[in-house]
């Protein structure tokens, strides 16, 4: 399968009162068409910044220092970073759909649901209001919203959290995008509602062959929905691989620690798992060398504390990893 997204050397900085934070530091990430990729990491790892960079919705105090984000539609390739504000608006909400954690960042509180979906449709397509109305209703039905006619006429505050998130997904897929970016789409929801939304993602993925990038802190959610996983730590990608491979045989010590530290129900044993000690580094004062070295049980003194490991490809494992313990090819 061909790539739908190619991120190379992406570096994003935030200007904070205390100084400049490199939220993303030379990120390389590829995504194949029709694939579900989970980007996991703890708070501050940069996973949300990644989502905001792709959709070009970074806050004002952030800026993209370098790198490229090439997005392939069916007939062209676009570097999203180099698009003008006007051009990115033509891609966003059209070729790239978005779902965020808090539905209210995206829903207009004083506008009826149907009008919000219709607006999203009519901006990007030459269709009549009547056609858009029909399509809006069809979308609500597709997302298994009970009583769609009633919901269409409702305002956001009249709906539950789960329903609002369904409406958001309806809006995100309204124009049949190639890529869906979902940033913690179920983190604010109850477990049973989360399960329904995740099932919905799976169905949409199958039906439209949609490519989905899901940002999550929950490795269980990643295990349920993703084909591939990218693990982030302190602004860097530490490991990328097929979801089953990474969970069965994590290579990077951070991935091993993360898998060994999470609580779960039932029996669950990760062979190389261990309990992570300490906490992620202060982004204003990153450790030299590998950012994970102060917490790493396998630290190689003469190497890890001086030199930052590049992301390399470990061929025999079909994996990308940034750790001096492994040998492989550079990008």
């Amino acid at each position, binding site marked *: 399968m061909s790539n739908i997204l190619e991120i190379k050397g992406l570096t994003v900085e935030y200007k904070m009162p205390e100084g400049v934070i490199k939220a993303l530091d030379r990120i390389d990430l590829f995504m194949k068409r029709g694939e579900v990729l989970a980007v996991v990491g703890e708070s501050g790892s940069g996973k949300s910044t990644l989502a905001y960079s792709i959709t070009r919705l970074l806050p004002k105090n952030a800026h993209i220092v370098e790198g490229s984000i090439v997005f392939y539609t069916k007939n062209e390739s676009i570097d999203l970073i180099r698009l003008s504000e006007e051009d990115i608006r033509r891609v966003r909400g059209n070729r790239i759909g978005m779902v965020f954690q808090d539905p209210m960042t995206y829903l207009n509180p004083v506008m009826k649901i149907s009008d919000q979906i219709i607006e999203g449709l009519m901006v990007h397509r030459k269709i009549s209001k009547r056609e858009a109305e029909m399509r809006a209703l069809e979308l609500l039905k597709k997302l298994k919203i009970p009583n769609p006619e009633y919901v269409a006429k409702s305002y956001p505050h009249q709906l539950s959290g789960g329903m609002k998130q369904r409406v958001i997904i309806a809006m995100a897929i309204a124009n049949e995008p190639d890529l869906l970016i979902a940033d913690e789409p179920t983190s604010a929801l109850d*477990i049973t509602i989360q399960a329904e939304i995740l099932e919905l993602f799976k169905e949409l993925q199958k039906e439209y062959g949609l490519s989905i990038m899901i940002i999550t802190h929950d490795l269980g959610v990643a295990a349920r929905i993703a084909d591939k996983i990218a693990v982030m730590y302190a602004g860097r990608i530490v490991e990328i691989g097929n979801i089953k491979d990474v*969970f069965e045989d994590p290579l990077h010590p951070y991935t091993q620690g993360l898998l060994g530290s999470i609580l*779960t129900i039932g029996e669950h044993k990760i062979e190389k798992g261990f309990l*992570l000690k300490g906490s992620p580094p202060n982004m204003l004062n990153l450790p030299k060398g590998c950012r994970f070295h102060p917490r790493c049980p396998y630290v190689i003194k003469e190497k890890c504390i001086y030199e930052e490991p590049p992301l390399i490809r470990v061929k025999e494992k079909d994996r990308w990893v940034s750790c001096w313990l492994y040998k492989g090819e550079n990008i």
Partner: protein
Amino acid sequence: MRDELLRVEHLKKYFPIGKSFFRKTSLYIKAVDDVSFILERGQILGIVGESGSGKTTLAKLILRLIKPTSGAVYFDGINILDLSEKEIRRLRPRFQMIFQDISASLNPRKNIREILAQVYKTHTNLNDKEINQRIEELLEDVGLTPASIFMNRYPHELSGGQRQRVNIARAIALDPELIIADEPTSALDASLKRQIIDLFKKIYEDRKGRLSYIVISHDISLIDNITQKILVMYSGKVVEYGDTKNVIRNPKHPYTQMLISAVPVPNPEIEKNKKIFVSGEPMTLKTEFNGCPFYNRCLFVTDKCKKEMPPFIKLEDGRYIACWLYYDKIHML
């Protein structure tokens, strides 16, 4: 003999939601509806439920932070609902609360020494030197070492995990018999969460038999890892109660079954082959409704479920359950 620390009897909390035009009487939401359970000394009880299940309201009722509509809460044989404010204050050191919002409970203008000293000054007659020594021991107990450094730090200088350690230090300062923790780890990342849970376990082990916990959470993995008994709440009612491992490995109530199946586990092999049956959303319970609150989402619903709440019955394995499926099975034999 069983040593009962806490006994909750038919506890109810109804919140008024305004008057109906035709009936002129108030309508109520049943936030907590007829909850009863016993916590033995030295036991860890988990209360699970999703938003609106009434679990936090239940905690507030037990701590008497809000007044119940009816029912009783016996702490070590004393009905705390009968006590005056003054008498309650005297009892306070014996039961403590740890909240979800880690930072809100720490005064930002006071350093850690002052925050912890406050507890001793209010409830003991210790002098400053003794208090300092206690604080040092406390900080070491919760893993904030070297204590001499952390004492002089302010809450904003600490990470989320460290702040929660201060909250725990404060909760155990007076050697309480009961700690109620409401979502104690939900604001923390995976690696910190695990560290805090291990700390809860260590504190419990160190005080073997003298300390009990009630852990309230929507996080089943937390409840599974730390508690011995589990109380599953749904729309203000207890639907299942029993040994934690037993209930989570082998849930009986249709809601518990739905809940457990919905929990994502970090194992792609299991997750990719899992059949998940979830549907609908919880309804808000109003006073005129007397059926089972889960009926609109239940796969096994019958007409009876819509009309009448099933009684709480004991099954052979010792668990309690409120569901007509099991009631009818037992009573047909």
